[in-house]
């Protein structure tokens, strides 16, 4: 089943509601033991980068999570700050990230083409899907719309890890995929049929 990593940060309920509607078996996991039956993992996250990392580090789940993802190759998707946690670190904080996908999280406020724009980047934006990666294996439309709410963005080290970009002053890396590890900056759990399709693709990959 899909296990949603509940370390006290992020909108777990929205994922549970959506998967229930899709008829996909999904439950939250609040301890390492509960992760044992995971065939898919979702790592949500909102708020401050260090706060999220600290909560995950203190959750007692990190070690098991890393074993599942890095050794057992269980597919995982990080969402919003959960995506940012896949990087090596963030300009928002000091704590190291999970470092599962090479990259660093940067502030829009430090980017010359974005710093004059309203912050946070809030609302519906179009994803420019670069290639048919796993998360977009079945998509109804070429230019899906997703809801974003963030001030920091994932800057992938390798272009081949970038599955989709979105434009806010410049094209930033909105979705990254490296093998079975995925990250989406936007909120598929709140992005109507586009988001439901993405999560369905993830559940079936």
């Amino acid at each position, binding site marked *: 089943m899909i296990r949603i990593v509940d370390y006290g940060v992020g909108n777990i309920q929205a994922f549970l509601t959506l998967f229930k509607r899709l008829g996909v078996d999904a439950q939250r996991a609040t301890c390492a033991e509960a992760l044992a039956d995971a065939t898919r993992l979702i790592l949500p996250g909102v*708020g401050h980068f260090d706060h999220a990392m600290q909560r995950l580090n203190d959750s007692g789940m990190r070690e098991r999570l890393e074993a599942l993802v890095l050794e057992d190759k269980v597919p995982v998707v990080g969402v919003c700050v959960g995506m940012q946690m896949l990087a090596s670190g963030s300009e928002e904080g000091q704590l190291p990230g999970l470092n599962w996908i090479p990259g660093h999280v940067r502030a829009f406020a430090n980017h010359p083409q974005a710093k004059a724009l309203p912050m*946070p980047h809030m609302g*519906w934006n179009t994803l420019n899907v670069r290639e048919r990666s796993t998360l977009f294996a079945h998509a109804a439309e070429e230019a899906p719309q997703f809801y974003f709410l963030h001030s920091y963005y994932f800057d992938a080290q390798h272009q081949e890890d970038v599955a989709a970009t979105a*434009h806010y002053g410049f094209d930033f890396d909105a979705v990254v995929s490296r093998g079975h590890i995925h990250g989406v900056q936007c909120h598929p759990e709140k992005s*109507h049929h586009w988001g439901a399709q993405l999560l369905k693709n993830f559940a079936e990959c």
Partner: protein
Amino acid sequence: MLRPRIIPCLLIHQGGLVKTQLFKDPKYVGDPINAVKIFNEKEADELMVLDIDATVRGVEPNFDLIAKLAAECRMPLCYGGGVTTAAQAARIIALGVEKVAVSAAAITHPALITEMARAVGSQSVVAVMDVRKKSGLFSKGYQVCTHNAQKVHKLDPVEFSRQLQDAGAGEIVINSVDRDGTMQGYDIELAASVKAAVTVPVTVLGGAGAQEHLEDLIKRLGVVGAAAGSLFVFKGKYRAVLINYPTPAQKTQLCYSALQN
């Protein structure tokens, strides 16, 4: 490209969904959960739900109702009404709500916004400013009010919006008391003056009665939140209750054509 947000705003009064005029005369328009279901089907950009009783009656937010709304809502949800502490905001976020709005409590307790931002992150903190034109024969300009416009504060909306942003608000909602329920169009001058003063996203509420009003706002302010109550719950000049919302194609067309002008 980022698109302007078209946001239905639902008011809760005595457990039901209502629409006011000039912040008065709440008219019952239906069941809140049912309305959320309809806006799910219509794929609304986001929803704003404001409990207009909680602050006036001095009671806590209705967490049971919020939980039900959040569980049903498939789009981003902003809740406001009766929130006075950061702990309440955190509890609401944990129920599955994206953003928590405050207005009255941000005035009586200026540190609240900062405390909320620390607890749930600025991106989830919305400051709602209820604004009305100053009354009196020789008065000019606007003033901020609270408690369903029963209390007036000596605050200039432009200056106050800057303070709210500096305190940690991630979004400012400008709610025009004078336009509420009139369906005569937004107070675009007011909205423009606030938007020019802040760098956080701005959402405008009060006065929209037709799609042209949304277009007028977007033409003038660009990428902005265009919120409305009456427009999305009434149909026709007799204000028959009918929940409605543009189709995705209509919405995209409306937003992009307005931005190009």
